[in-house]
């Protein structure tokens, strides 16, 4: 028995309820990296999904290789490779500086996420009845117009639950970019730990991660409710949707990571 490590309530209280500006910088880093990487990942995944069903064979092939490589290699390897193999600029937006490592991290996370989103989006598109595309075409819509106005809006309903889980994971996965020197929440905790030797810093940022992912659960439930308003049948209330998003069993069944 190595003995129970005494929980330093003071540190936890401090970090969770009265965090300082340094901590907020790292919290902001975690948030903006997650949001940008997930959004870009969805767009990449959409492109890859459309490429997958293209009549143009090289596009199908590229999409296949892309997903195979980026789902088959560790995201940490991808982060390192993207950062060190290419040079990235540091961007300044007034008070907000985005260091080159953060940009590299966002790029790597986006490309990685796109590979997973492709399958989710493809499943979403496939879930739409084939008759919908036929009806859209029969009134004179092109494939692109039909996709935009008829297919994708319906696919969205199937895509949002697993997408929600992906974003949940993304917020936690961003912690990996500390290895290329991005000062985000985990780096903050580690730095404080190595100085003050109190492991509760990790506990404190765990609370903050939990806060972020919980807020997202509510947002996800809201989005799902709005999307299903026009659907007859299983009209879950807002509360039921939040519970459903929480329950690992149903989220697994919906194809999410839980």
């Amino acid at each position: 028995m190595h003995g129970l490590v005494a929980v330093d309530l003071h540190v936890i209280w401090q970090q969770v309820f009265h965090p300082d500006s340094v901590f907020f910088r790292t919290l902001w880093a975690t948030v903006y990296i997650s949001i940008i990487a997930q959004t870009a990942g969805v767009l990449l995944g959409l492109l890859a999904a459309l490429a997958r069903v293209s009549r143009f064979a090289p596009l199908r092939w590229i999409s296949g290789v892309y997903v195979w490589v980026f789902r088959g290699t560790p995201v940490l390897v991808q982060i390192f490779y993207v950062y060190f193999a290419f040079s990235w600029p540091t961007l300044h937006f007034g008070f907000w500086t985005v260091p080159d490592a953060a940009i590299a991290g966002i790029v790597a996370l986006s490309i990685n996420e796109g590979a997973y989103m492709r399958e989710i989006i493809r499943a979403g598109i496939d879930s739409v009845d084939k008759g919908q595309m036929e009806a859209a075409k029969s009134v004179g819509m092109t494939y692109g117009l039909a996709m935009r106005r008829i297919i994708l809006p319906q696919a969205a309903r199937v895509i949002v639950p697993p997408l929600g889980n992906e974003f949940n994971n993304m917020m936690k996965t961003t912690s990996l970019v500390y290895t290329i020197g991005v000062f985000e929440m985990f780096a903050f905790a580690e730095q404080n730990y190595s100085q003050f030797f109190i492991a509760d810093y990790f506990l404190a940022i765990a609370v903050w991660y939990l806060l972020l992912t919980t807020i997202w659960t509510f947002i996800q439930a809201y989005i799902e409710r709005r999307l299903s308003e026009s659907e007859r049948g299983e009209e879950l209330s807002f509360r039921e949707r939040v519970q459903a998003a929480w329950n690992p069993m149903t989220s697994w069944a919906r194809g999410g990571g839980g």
Partner: protein
Amino acid sequence: MKRLFPLLALAALVSTLAACGGGGGSNDTTSTQASNIPNPIVFCVDTTYPPAESIVNGKPAGYDIDIANAIAKQLGSTAQIKVTGFTVIIPALKQKKCNAIISSMTITPERSKQVHFSPYLTVGTFLMVKKGNPSHITTVASLSGKSAAVQASTTQLAALEAENKTLQKQGKPLITIKSYPADTSAAAAIQAGKVDAYLADATPVLYYIRTTGDKFQTAGPQVGIAPEGVATRIGDPLGPQINNAIQALYLNGKMKTILAKWKAAQFALKNQ
């Protein structure tokens, strides 16, 4: 039941051993050693710092590894290397995940408050820049407005942060500090052209300059020359025992042999 019994006995034996073994924090006494020396002595090492410690062919290797083995042998024991990140290496020692740290650790007043040091080498800091020194770097102060890569939790990072405080007071542009949990990432950063300078102990700097052909050079003199020490928990009798072992290794020449093998002879402890 007959077949089950040996299995149960084996399970009981294994779980007892596991409960007692832990991470090397326990004192295992065997008859042939001096009192209280653990066997094996577990050393925490951050293997991102060649030639002192790095991973070669999948295993930790370097002069710190050889020195750890020599110290253990000198004490009648054996050494076990536990790879640990440098940013959490002192907490790991304090939490008894190892018996000692041997990881190119410079002895500083702050660190001495946390651990006991047995000095064994004298090493300073070098700045490493591109060959030809295009950014004309001479000292840490000359890094103002430029970028530098270091490993997190090192004296080099502390030096850069201190310099930035001074530069801020002087109203001069700050140094853009890129710090990484692994020193190899900091070295990779300068090799990828992401920073103007890399700061680390003279040992890895000279190693990188030597092994990357003609691409890099040092800038300015070696600074902050100070002893490096093997760290142990304050109050742990192993500390003074390691002091003795190191002294013995210098006297019998084994230390110099190890250092010469790794081309680090110049870093022998002064006054030995």
